[in-house]
């Protein structure tokens, strides 16, 4: 995720988005603008309100101050935090903070969103809320999610890539992935499929 977000440079090969290669200085800014990254941990910026924090994130991603301020309100609306816009982020719950993290990505309208463990640490109701938000994200945005929560895989995602120790163990559609555990109950299929991939049973 860090390499895709251009936080780190790849030791081998290239990361490209269309014609944009972030190794080239001139293409780095448009690449970073096009790629939104939600890290695993979202922290409150001390002193800032929810809207200010999201607007600041948008400004850092190249939006003008005025545009970032407007876009922050829209992004918070999308993640269901509009009524908490003027609350300090330090006063938000973990689940709300995670949604602020998502708003920080949405604020600059990326064409690719990288979400690193977006539902880790959330209680079931918060996860349901998060899932709902994810399902309403713009269809023209590609979303790459790194997760260990596989129970809602088939509902939300098109493609599954299983990585183990830096090696790709599986890549295919969510349907193909789930088909590796055909006779299991729905809530266990992804988990069983995952175990089979890891054990090399496919």
């Amino acid at each position, binding site marked *: 995720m860090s390499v895709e*977000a*251009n*936080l780190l440079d790849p030791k081998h090969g290239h990361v490209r988005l269309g014609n944009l290669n972030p190794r080239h200085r001139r293409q780095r*800014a448009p690449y*970073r*603008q096009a*790629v939104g*990254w939600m*890290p695993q*941990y979202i*922290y*409150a*910026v*001390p*002193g*800032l309100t929810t809207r*200010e924090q999201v*607007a*600041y994130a948008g*400004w*850092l*991603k*190249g939006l003008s*101050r005025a545009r970032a*301020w407007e876009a922050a309100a829209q992004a918070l609306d999308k993640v269901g935090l509009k009524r908490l816009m003027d609350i300090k982020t330090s006063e938000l719950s973990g689940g709300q903070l995670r949604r602020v993290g998502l708003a920080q990505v949405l604020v600059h309208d990326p064409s690719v969103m990288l979400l690193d463990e977006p539902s880790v640490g959330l209680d079931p109701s918060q996860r349901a809320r998060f899932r709902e938000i994810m399902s309403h994200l713009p269809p023209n945005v590609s979303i790459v999610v790194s997760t260990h929560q596989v129970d809602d895989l088939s509902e939300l995602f098109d493609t599954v890539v299983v990585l183990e120790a830096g090696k790709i163990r599986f890549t295919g559609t969510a349907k193909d992935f789930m088909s590796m555990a055909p006779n299991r109950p729905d809530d266990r299929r992804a988990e069983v499929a995952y175990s089979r991939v890891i054990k090399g049973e496919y």
Partner: protein
Amino acid sequence: MPLRTILRISPAAWLFPAVVVIAIAISNTIIAPPEPYPPALTGAGEFSIVLVAPICAALAAWEAGRLRRAHWWNLPHVRPSLYIALSAVIAPLCVGWTTIMISIAFRLLSRGVLIPDLRILLVAIVVILAQTLIGFTAGIWLPPVIAAPVVLIVLFSWMTLPPGLNAFWVRHLTGDLSGCCSVDTDLAPGAMEGTIFLALGFMLAALIILNPRRRIIILLTSLLPAIIGLALGASLVQGMGPDPLVPRNPKYLVCSNQWPKVCVWPEHKSRLLEVSEIARKAATAWQSMGISVPNTFSEHYSLKRGENSFGFSLEANRIIIANSLAYSMLPPTPNCPENRPWIGGDRQEYLNAWLDEVAGLTADQISNEFPSDVLQTVARVRRMSIPEQRTWYKRNFQMAQKCGSLPHLEVDK
């Protein structure tokens, strides 16, 4: 960040009034000359930089801590690091720059001057910018509760300890230009350039260290501009005395037309007629005693033949001005070898007192300037005939320039 957010969350905004009050109090500890001379007044007002710049750095460290605590600095931003840093420290920077300007304006307006010395102002602006960015970098690297006090203490020490060192060059690089100036001196260009080079070098080093990818090579690279800045700065202030001064350019002198010609600095122009009259009266009296008088008395220090250097402050009375003109008539200090010291120098005051009295000052008027034994001796000389007084003066004048000889001051009776 929007202005209202900055005003709400930045400690710089809350502390601004207190910083201004402290800055004015600090700058008032510097005694500025009474003349409306912009470099002197700007230098005195700029003295508050010794605390203002470190405060800005500490506040910047605190602002950096906001980004550090949120783990935002290392994220892949679109905006350049410098832009983000400057945006984050805009409040401390504005507080620093505004405070220095208020502090300087306070001193300038006390003498009715409106325009500051732009060179000193430029140094203050650059030093505050550099220290603020250094503070920001420290705040990115260290937790804010450590970075802010450490930066404050280290930079305050840097600003205040060098004047205590025997090596003068260090003090001329801090940005404290309160040693500038008296009315006959000007800011040494080397002090301005040296300070700016050092500040830019360290600022560049701080910006290199800000690179989110913390590698040894980046740390080592950052040393380069710091070392170059220090070397350049040190070379520019090398050989300077305790204050960052050079003699003022004589082209600014304002001169009288009558004999003897009197040239004063423009800040003394209002008293030129009065001084010319005192000089004319004194020169005529000295000439009547057979003493050669220069054609020009100038406030500019000059080694030119026929031109004597004198000085006075705007608050000086006629007695002080006449005494200063008389002092300019004394022989120059000889360059004596170690084994033949100039032992008569301290007794030049006899000649000075005699010149004062010839110029028309009474013993009472100069009683505060000279000890009573000097005045008694001069009184005995003054009772002699004019040729005898001339002989006494010329003999002692010549002896006062010799090494290892005592001027003959006692009256031969």
